C-alpha cells in the first residue's frame, strides 16, 4: 500500500519550463529573461550569491511574487497567473514557517484537511510522513518544544505529505549547525530519491549544491551563468563567475608561446587549440590539482612545471594549504591531503619548490574584461 502510493507520487512528478522570466525591482533586474528547463523528477539547485535572483526565481515558481513578463509551465500547464494556493507545490521555507498555534501533527495535517482528506486517512498519512522524517511519536508535541533539526523535519513532512508534483526548498538547512546540516543534506538527497518529486533547491552554499544536486543552475545578477551537473560545473566552468564561485581557484591570464599554444609563466598549459579572441583566455587553477613536482614522478610531456617560492604553509586538519609565489607577485594556492606526511614535503615560508599541473587538468575559460 505504502509502496504503491509512493510510486504513484513519483509518477506525477512534473517538469518545469521557464521562459523569458523577467522581474524588475525599480531599475534592478532581479530576473533578466531567464530560460530554464527543469526535468521531471530531478533535483535542481539554484546556486548564487545573495541578491543574485535565486530566491526571486523560487518565489516566482511558488507564486509569491508577480513577474513582469515570461512563462512558467508545470508540464503543459501555464501557471504564471495562478495564485499560490492553486499551484499544488510543496515548499520548505528558510524560517520553516511552522504554525506555532498547531501541534506537529496539526501542521502536517493542515494541507490534507484543506484537500478534504478524511480524518482517518489524514491520521495515517501524518504518521507515515512523521515516520519518513524519523519523528514517529512526536505528533502531539508543540512546535516550541522541538529542536531546530526537528522543526526542519516537520517543515519537510508538511511540504511533501500532500504529494505535490513539485517540491521547492529555500535554504532549508541554513539555520542548522554544520554537523546537522551535513547529515540533513544526505537525508534530503535520500528522501528525494524515495519521493521522486521534481525538486528545486535554493542555496548560496556551493558545497551543499555539489553534494545534493542532479544539476546546478548557477545564477548571478538575475541571469543563469551555467546549468549543468555538479561534476561539469566544477571541472568545466563556463565562465569566470562560475569558476570563482564554485570551489577554490586562482585565475591567471594566459598568453601565446612561440609555438602558438596557450601558456603561463613560460609553460605550455594545454594541448588543446583555442582560437584567438579579443579578450583572450584565462587559466583557472584549482588548489588540489597542483602538486609538488619534486616528490612525484613527473612526465614533462603531460605536465607544466613552475619554479616557486613558498609564502605560507598552513595545516588545516584533513588538508594543508600552501601559498606560493610564482614570480611577478603572482600567487598560487595549493591544497594537499594530509593523509601522507610526504605530500606536503614539510614546506616552510621562503623554501624554493617546483609545482606541477597536469595539462589535461588545466581549466581554460574566456578572459573577462575588468569592469
Amino acid at each position: 500500500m505504502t509502496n504503491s502510493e509512493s510510486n504513484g507520487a513519483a509518477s506525477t512528478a512534473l517538469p518545469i519550463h521557464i521562459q523569458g522570466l523577467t522581474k524588475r525591482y525599480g531599475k534592478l533586474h532581479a530576473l533578466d529573461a531567464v530560460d530554464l528547463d527543469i526535468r521531471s523528477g530531478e533535483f535542481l539547485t539554484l546556486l548564487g550569491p545573495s541578491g543574485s535572483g535565486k530566491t526571486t526565481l523560487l518565489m516566482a515558481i511558488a507564486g509569491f511574487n508577480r513577474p513582469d513578463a515570461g512563462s512558467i509551465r508545470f508540464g503543459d500547464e501555464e501557471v504564471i497567473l495562478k495564485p499560490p494556493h492553486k499551484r499544488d507545490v510543496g515548499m520548505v521555507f528558510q524560517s520553516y514557517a511552522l504554525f506555532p498555534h498547531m501541534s506537529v501533527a496539526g501542521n502536517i495535517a493542515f494541507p490534507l484537511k484543506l484537500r478534504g482528506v478524511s480524518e482517518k486517512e489524514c491520521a495515517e498519512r501524518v504518521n507515515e510522513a512523521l515516520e519518513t522524517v524519523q519523528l514517529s511519536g512526536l505528533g502531539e508535541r508543540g512546535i516550541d518544544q522541538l529542536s531546530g533539526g526537528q522543526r526542519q523535519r516537520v517543515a519537510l513532512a508538511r511540504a511533501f505529505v500532500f504529494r505535490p508534483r513539485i517540491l521547492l526548498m529555500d535554504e532549508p538547512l541554513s539555520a542548522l549547525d554544520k554537523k546537522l546540516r551535513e547529515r540533513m543534506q544526505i537525508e534530503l538527497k535520500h528522501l528525494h530519491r524515495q519521493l521522486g518529486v521534481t525538486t528545486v533547491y535554493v542555496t548560496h552554499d556551493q558545497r551543499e549544491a555539489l553534494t545534493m544536486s542532479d544539476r546546478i543552475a548557477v545564477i548571478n545578477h538575475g541571469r543563469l551563468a551555467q546549468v549543468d551537473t555538479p561534476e561539469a560545473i566544477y571541472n568545466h566552468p563556463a565562465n569566470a563567475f562560475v569558476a570563482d564561485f564554485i570551489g577554490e581557484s586562482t585565475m591567471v591570464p594566459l598568453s601565446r608561446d612561440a609555438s602558438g599554444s596557450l601558456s603561463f609563466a613560460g609553460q605550455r598549459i594545454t594541448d588543446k587549440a583555442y582560437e584567438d579572441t579579443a579578450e583572450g583566455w584565462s587559466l583557472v587553477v584549482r588548489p588540489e590539482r597542483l602538486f609538488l613536482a619534486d616528490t612525484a614522478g613527473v612526465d614533462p610531456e603531460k605536465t607544466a612545471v613552475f619554479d616557486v617560492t613558498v609564502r605560507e604553509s598552513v595545516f588545516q586538519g584533513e588538508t594543508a594549504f600552501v601559498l606560493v609565489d610564482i614570480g611577478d607577485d603572482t600567487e598560487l594556492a595549493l591544497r594537499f591531503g594530509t593523509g601522507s606526511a610526504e605530500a606536503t614535503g614539510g614546506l616552510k615560508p621562503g623554501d624554493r619548490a617546483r609545482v606541477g599541473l597536469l595539462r589535461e587538468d588545466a581549466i581554460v575559460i574566456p578572459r573577462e574584461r575588468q569592469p
Partner: protein
Amino acid sequence: MNRPDAAEGGNRDRNAGMLRAQERREEWGLLSLAAPALLVIVLVILIPVGWLFYLSFIGGDGQFSLEHYRKMVEYKSYARTFATTFEVSILTTGICILLGYPLAYFLALLPPRWAGIFMLAVLLPFWTSLLVRTYAWLVLLQRKGMLNEFAIHIGLWDSPVKLVHNMTGTLIGMAHIMLPFLVLPLYSAMKKIDRDMMHAAANLGASPATAFRQVYLPLSLSGMVAGSLIVFILCLGFYVTPAVLGGGRVIMVSTQITAILENQFDWGAASALGVVLLVATLLVLYIAARFFKFDAALFGKG
C-alpha cells in the same frame, strides 16, 4: 591527566567571599534605583486604596458595618449602574475591535516608513487632552453640530438626530478615545507574525480567506485579547467622556461615585462602590488570564 582544578584544589574558595559580597552590593544598588517608584506606589496607591477599603466598612454611626454593601444589593439603581458600566465597556470594546483590527492589519502590512506616518495619525489624538477631544465630539455631534447640519444639508436626514447626551454619543466618544489602546498591542502582535506564515498557508492550499481565519487570526489573537482587556478595564472606570457626552443619561459607576460625593458627601457609600468596581476589574483580569496566555503585548514577556 592534566586537571587544572585538581592542581589548584586548595584555592577553590579563593576570593569567594569577596566576590559574593560584590554581587550583593550590585543587587542592592539596582534595587535602590527602584526605591523612589516603590515609595510613590505605597504613598499614592496602597495607602489611599487601603483607606477607601476601610471607609467602605464604616457605617453612618462611625462603627464597623456592612450597610453600604447591603444598600448596593437592595437598591435597584446600583445594579442598573453596574449593568450600564459593563454594557458601555463591552460595546466600546466591541466597536474598538471592529474599527481597530482592520486598521492594525493595514498598519502591519505597510512598509515601516509609511507605517510610522499612519501610526502618527493614530497617536496624534492620543496626545491631545482628553477633555478637549470629548468637548470636540460635543461640538460635532450636538443638535446644531457640524454632523447634523451637514447631514441635513446633503439630505441624509430631515430634522436633527440626537447623537449626543445619550448612549450613542458616549460610545462614539469612548471608542475614539480607546482606539489607540487596542491598536498598539494588536499592531505589535501582528508585526511579529512572520510573512512566511501566510505564504506557507497559501502554499499548502489555503485560500486567502482560509489562511486568514486559520493562521493569521489565531496568531494575532494574543494581541487582540491584550488590547481588548486594556480597553475594557479602562472603560470600567472611565469618567470624563460618559459624564460629558452621556448628559446624565448614561450613569456609570464613576459618575455615580461623583454624584454620591457631590450630593450626599457620603464617603462610605462612594468608597464601597469604588471597592466593588476594583474587585470586579481584578476578577475580569483573573478570568482573562486563566483563559488566555498573555504575551509581550501586555506583560512584557518575550
